[in-house]
């Protein structure tokens, strides 16, 4: 929850990246992700020019670099786990390192995008790029209600701790799983009730299935320039290791 609130706070900044149209940023990040994912799988050094490009974007964003790097490190356990498995199976440390680096770099790019683009603009950008309205609305509701579901989950956890002082799970692992599965079922039930309440509220205020945007976005010459430059830079960063002697 704290992470998304911090991103919200960052997104209200005023750097050169903040001022760009969300569509230009979305397309650039998409190109960046394609470049990252198409680097040779066993050549972590090939990611260096792309990482340098990310560092430049981070500097332009005026976001607290160290905090962004640390907060985004939350994704690392997964690629590190799979990297280790791959290393143990194939004995190829380069492949494992590239896997971790690519995953981290991709997550950083997405975090940077969210840090320089308020969520409403990001969703409007997605919609303007042709993402179906229903998908954008699901995404919006997901982000919005994830916070409430996390709140619910935390309240339920506190209630459980109050009743057994946290002692039960340590003594009895089976009981822990039993209780966790029960809590998940309750959480699902509550989330369903919440969704129904929201749907009622939307209907009561005139919603008839089509989502109308309040701010028609405008794509300016500055956005075109940014898009062209970023596409060129990403292409060069991606291809540089292949043409280098």
């Amino acid at each position, binding site marked *: 929850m704290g992470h998304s*609130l911090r991103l*919200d706070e960052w997104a*209200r900044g005023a750097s050169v990246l903040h001022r760009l149209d969300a569509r230009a940023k979305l397309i650039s990040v998409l190109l960046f992700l394609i470049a990252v994912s198409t680097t040779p799988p066993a050549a972590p050094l090939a990611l260096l020019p792309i990482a340098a490009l990310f560092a430049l974007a981070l500097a332009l964003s005026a976001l607290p670099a160290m905090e962004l790097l640390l907060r985004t490190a939350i994704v690392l356990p997964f690629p590190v786990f799979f990297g280790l498995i791959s290393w143990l199976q194939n004995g190829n440390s380069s492949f494992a390192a590239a896997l971790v680096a690519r995953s981290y770099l991709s997550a950083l790019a997405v975090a940077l995008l969210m840090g320089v683009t*308020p*969520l*409403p603009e990001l*969703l409007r950008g997605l919609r303007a790029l042709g993402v179906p309205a229903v998908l954008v609305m699901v995404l*919006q*509701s997901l982000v*919005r209600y994830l*916070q*409430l579901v996390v709140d619910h989950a935390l309240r339920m956890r506190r209630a459980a701790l109050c009743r057994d002082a946290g002692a039960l799970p340590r003594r009895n692992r089976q009981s822990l799983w039993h209780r966790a599965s029960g809590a998940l079922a309750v959480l699902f039930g509550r989330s369903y009730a*919440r969704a129904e*309440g*929201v749907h*009622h*509220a*939307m*209907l*009561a*205020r*005139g*919603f*008839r299935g*089509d989502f*109308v*945007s*309040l*701010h*028609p976005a405008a794509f300016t010459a500055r956005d075109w320039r940014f898009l062209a430059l970023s596409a060129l830079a990403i292409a060069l960063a991606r291809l540089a290791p292949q043409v280098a002697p």
Partner: protein
Amino acid sequence: MSLPVIDVRGLQYTYPDGTPALRGIDFQLAAGESVAILGANGSGKTTFLLHLAGLIRGDGDLRIGGIPLTDDTLTDVRGKIGYVFQDSDDQLFMPTVLEDVAFGPLHTGMDPAESLRRAHEIIATLGISHLANRAPYHLSAGEKKRAALAGVLVMKPEVLVFDEPTTFLDPPGQNDLARLLSALPQAKLIATHDVYFARRVAKRAVFFADGRIAGDGPVEAVADRFHWRLD
């Protein structure tokens, strides 16, 4: 005598699991009148209120602002009813307060500029202009309630329906809400457990019991008759 803004006759509703919720409700609300709905949990208060906005449909005649509630008139009827839900988190689903308030006008065909103008106007009236660009989940319970109310008032409804409006509010927040409600000119229907709050915002009360209206009269008299007070 003018037509009632809410006219309900013989309303019955049974939940899909077979539990009867409403067993023949007759109710009228005059223009500008405020009525408190009292009654135990599960007595049918919320089910009744949901019917008024056409969110669930039972058997019987419902007229809102003189319009009979049917599939064809649903949009018109919802334009006349402003429903403030018990939990403001249900109601505030847009990323910012301003966008949430503008949601209703925008989705009933108003152009974006006019929707925004009306949203700004209503949040200024309710004293929450400073919250315009805040995310709803950053707000206090009192601020959420005001934002939810703004999202309803912006539609200029004839009738305001409140489901347990004091839930989650501290005493100053309840005072604040009571003052706000008393100042609004619309007819109001307020489901609440709080007799003191009911007395502040309404003169008349109806008492729901077992899906029926068991009593109708001045708030004090209804509360006394059904022993609806703390000891």
